[in-house]
């Protein structure tokens, strides 16, 4: 029985519900010490001195500074510009100046209180406009971290064709991942100067590469092993290398394992966040509702270092024109350096920063030509054989119209839109509104990224008689370590019980690439199919030789090796017999893009992604006109993900991502003062609770990825992209407020109301 498409219970479920799952903070190694970090106190400056209080007994602790780094003092990512430990100039609050380890965390924290950091302050840069002015330079000669342009058709001609032009500037704030498990890592020295690194991570091989540069040793000197991870959402993609770096430097000096687990406030203060952004949109449209021109200026605040910003900017910009047909597009994306902690990967990876502006703007464009939001989107939605802004000709897996139709059918959007437009009030005078957002998300790395990566995975015969999947793709809660075995079992044609999955550990599994970019299911699907065929070819040849059978009709069924309809032996016996006779067997293969995929990095044209997932979110809200409190009553979440390998888990991704999007829209506000996050704890950075969460109706559409064996597309990031504009569009319908910025907290809605209603309205409201 195939398992793809069925609700297999998550394979790590037992461990998680009994408390037996070992997260990094649950791991206690013999003689392990605990590390803490002394950090820069201001946003921009030069380190003058780091002094240890002579009154403190330093004999019980060890400290490490940059002189204790044997390799290059940096956390290698795209560039090598992030120092692990500051020696001179620093660019944000919270950079490391000294590392401390002690037998107990309490003692390490006590020691930290006896370190005095003296700095010379430099003028900081906090806003996009200050960064753009480039009076103070943080990066290069202009503070520009990255810049890209997409150009299609003739923009001027497109605007000439237009009857209406709609223009607007929109902004989005920082967003915190707020995984429930803070960052944490353990480094443990092994014989011969090598290290085990165990912890909370998304991408073991990213850490491997960073350790190689930092420690000046080959990557093979490090076994990077994932502990059970308590949520990541992109936040443990690149930052995990920083924590690993602190631990390994301390462990080398201490000659023993060192663990660092961040406190919540420390995690929130210094780790990466979603890039804040500002987007200017100018759109030409004919009276009949046809889009003729789109001009987009997409600006991101990168924070202090390059980290992953160029890639985030690229994905954001490519998604910025949205799922709309338009012959004339000019989109310019640029990211600037500021003296704030580096912004990095966060579910959606630039796309939520693009879709909030676009989808709020598109409602305004629709209104300009007197079309309702759904009708306008149906009219302009990309369809098979249409070309995207980068010139990609979309294939038959394009499901824009399908998701719009499903949204209409399930949410009764137009009926409610008309009802609420008539000014329907609910009980107690609250205003009601409905809004939607239409969006897509590319699966896998942008452009030729997957072709360069050649993500590798494998299958191995194990002594327990099972076939183990070898992959560096990590389980962070999203369910990959259930979905991957499901696909492996189906490609092998056997029961799920015949398959296992190895712990992601760089000494045990090949480099499949990072667990990011909504790529895991799509990438693993193809590799597993190829590996299953190769493994079976070897196993069946072995059976043909040793059991003198004609191998032609050999196949797996259930837990049996079959010859035609005749059971030959249990698969477990075959696995053991092969190992006994021929020794260990591992087959590996790598992901390849479909042959027709072409991407030009220079011109930013071509096939940006092998396939796209399509979605439409609908939100119904009630707004209290006195307090501006917003209650999201219900969200309809329609998503085409190609194939739901495990429907319950797919729904869980969609619901969870959508609630993060609701937080992004309404309550998740990071306030900065002097480059320091004032909202560095769960008391002040507010994420949605059970009491805030709306009812959700998830509708999965399955229009298969043409070049994937099971048809699965990417899913992880898609649900983060559309919730915020859908909710804000609903608030606009309910209140008439022209909201251009999120989060739309009651305070911000009140400001918006004052702007729109002027002093007279203000007095009336105040009175």
């Amino acid at each position, binding site marked *: 029985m195939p398992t793809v498409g069925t609700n297999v219970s998550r394979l790590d479920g037992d461990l998680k*519900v009994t408390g037996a799952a070992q997260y990094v*903070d649950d791991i206690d190694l013999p003689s392990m010490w605990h590390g803490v970090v002394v950090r820069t106190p201001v946003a921009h400056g030069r380190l003058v001195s780091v002094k240890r209080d002579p009154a403190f007994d330093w004999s019980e602790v060890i400290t490490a500074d940059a002189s204790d780094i044997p390799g290059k003092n940096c956390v290698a990512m795209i560039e090598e510009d992030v120092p692990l430990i500051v020696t001179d100039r620093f660019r944000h609050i919270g950079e490391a100046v000294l590392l401390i380890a002690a037998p107990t965390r309490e003692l390490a924290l006590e020691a930290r209180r006896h370190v005095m950091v003296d700095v010379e302050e430099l003028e900081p840069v906090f806003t996009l406009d200050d960064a753009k002015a480039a009076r103070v330079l943080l990066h290069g000669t202009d503070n520009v971290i990255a810049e890209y342009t997409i150009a299609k058709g003739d923009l001027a001609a497109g605007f000439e064709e237009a009857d209406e032009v709609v223009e607007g500037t929109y902004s989005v704030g920082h967003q915190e991942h707020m*995984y429930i498990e803070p960052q944490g890592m353990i480094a443990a020295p092994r014989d011969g100067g090598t290290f085990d690194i165990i912890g909370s991570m998304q991408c073991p091989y990213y850490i491997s590469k960073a350790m190689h540069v930092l420690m000046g040793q080959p990557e093979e000197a490090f076994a990077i092993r994932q502990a059970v991870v308590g*949520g990541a959402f992109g936040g443990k993609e690149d930052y995990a290398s920083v924590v690993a770096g602190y631990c390994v430097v301390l462990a080398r000096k201490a000659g023993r394992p060192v663990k660092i687990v961040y406190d919540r406030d420390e995690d929130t203060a210094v780790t990466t966040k979603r890039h804040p952004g500002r987007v200017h949109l100018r759109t030409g449209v004919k009276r009949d509702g046809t889009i003729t021109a789109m001009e987009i200026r997409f600006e991101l605040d990168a924070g202090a270092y390059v980290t992953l910003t160029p890639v985030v900017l690229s994905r954001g910009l490519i998604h910025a024109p949205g799922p709309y047909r338009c012959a004339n597009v000019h989109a310019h994306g640029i990211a600037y350096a500021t003296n704030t902690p580096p912004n990095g990967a966060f579910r959606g990876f630039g796309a939520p920063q693009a879709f909030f502006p676009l989808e709020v703007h598109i409602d305004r464009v629709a209104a300009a030509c007197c079309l309702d939001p759904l009708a306008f989107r149906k009219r302009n939605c990309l369809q098979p054989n249409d070309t995207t802004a980068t010139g990609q000709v979309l294939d038959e897996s394009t499901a824009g119209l399908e998701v719009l139709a499903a949204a209409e059918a399930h949410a009764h959007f137009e009926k409610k839109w008309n009802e609420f437009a008539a000014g329907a009030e609910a009980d107690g005078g609250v205003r009601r509104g409905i809004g939607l957002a239409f969006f897509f998300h590319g699966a896998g790395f942008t452009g030729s990224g997957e072709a360069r990566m050649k993500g590798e995975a494998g299958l191995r015969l194990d002594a327990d008689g099972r076939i183990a999947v070898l992959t560096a793709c990590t389980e962070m809660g999203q369910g990959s370590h259930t979905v991957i075995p499901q696909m492996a079992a189906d490609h092998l044609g056997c029961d799920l019980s015949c398959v296992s999955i190895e712990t992601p550990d760089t000494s045990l599994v090949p480099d499949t690439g990072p667990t990011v970019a909504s790529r895991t299911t799509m990438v693993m699907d193809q590799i597993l199919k190829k590996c299953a065929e190769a493994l079976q070819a070897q196993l069946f040849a072995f059976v043909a030789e040793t059991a003198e059978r004609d191998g032609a009709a050999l196949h797996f069924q259930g837990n049996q090796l079959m010859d035609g309809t005749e059971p030959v032996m249990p698969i477990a016996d075959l696995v053991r017999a092969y190992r006994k006779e021929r020794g260990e067997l591992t087959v590996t293969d790598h992901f390849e893009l479909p042959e027709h995929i072409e991407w030009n990095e220079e011109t930013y044209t071509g096939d940006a992604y092998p396939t796209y997932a399509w979605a439409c979110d609908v939100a119904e809200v009630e707004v209290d006109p006195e307090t501006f409190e917003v209650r999201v009553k219900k969200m309809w979440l329609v998503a085409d993900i190609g194939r739901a390998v495990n429907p319950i888990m797919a729904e869980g991704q969609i619901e969870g991502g959508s609630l993060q999007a609701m937080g992004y829209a309404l309550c998740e506000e990071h306030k900065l003062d002097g480059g320091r996050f004032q909202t560095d704890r769960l008391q002040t950075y507010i994420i949605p609770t059970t009491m805030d969460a709306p009812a959700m109706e998830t509708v999965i559409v399955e229009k298969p990825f043409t070049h994937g064996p099971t048809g699965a597309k990417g899913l992880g990031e898609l649900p983060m992209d559309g919730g915020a504009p859908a909710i804000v569009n609903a608030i606009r319908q309910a209140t008439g407020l022209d909201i251009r910025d999120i989060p739309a907290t009651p305070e911000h809605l009140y400001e918006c109301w004052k702007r729109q209603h002027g002093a007279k309205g203000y007095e009336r409201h105040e009175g």
Partner: protein
Amino acid sequence: MAVVTRKLIINGSEQEVVAEPTRRLLDLLRSDLKLTGTKEGCGEGECGACSIILNDEVVDSCLLLFGQLADGDRLLTVEGLSGSQVPGFSGSNDDLHPLQRAFIDLGGTQCGMCTPGMLMAAYALLCRNPNPTREEIAVALAGNLCRCTGYVKIIDAVEGAAKRMREGAR
């Protein structure tokens, strides 16, 4: 600091525990008693990952000090939820509590970091209200943050477990 001694009933078994009175109950459980199923998410009573049951009430173990406990206090952690320690609910086929089973089968756990606390809060709810509405479940879990699920499937799981328990699952 002088240590104090308390006779506690932890997951059904009596234990004499010696610690400083200012030791956080969470640290006592995780470090001293090696009950690492109880998690720390924020250390200030906001996230609920450290929820345990103290004498039938859900509490944040990060906000309680050892010295606040009294002799005879009953503590239940996630480790005590399965198997025979919990009166009335043990002995199902696989030894998991129906809540634990439902969290696995109905998608109530993803990364799992909030799960022990969620389970304890849900367990306390079902002890006092075996047939809660979805709204009542939401209220009971309002102090437990989850960043993965959107809560829908957590509420599904509690609802499903309650139904199974009313139908006599053991």
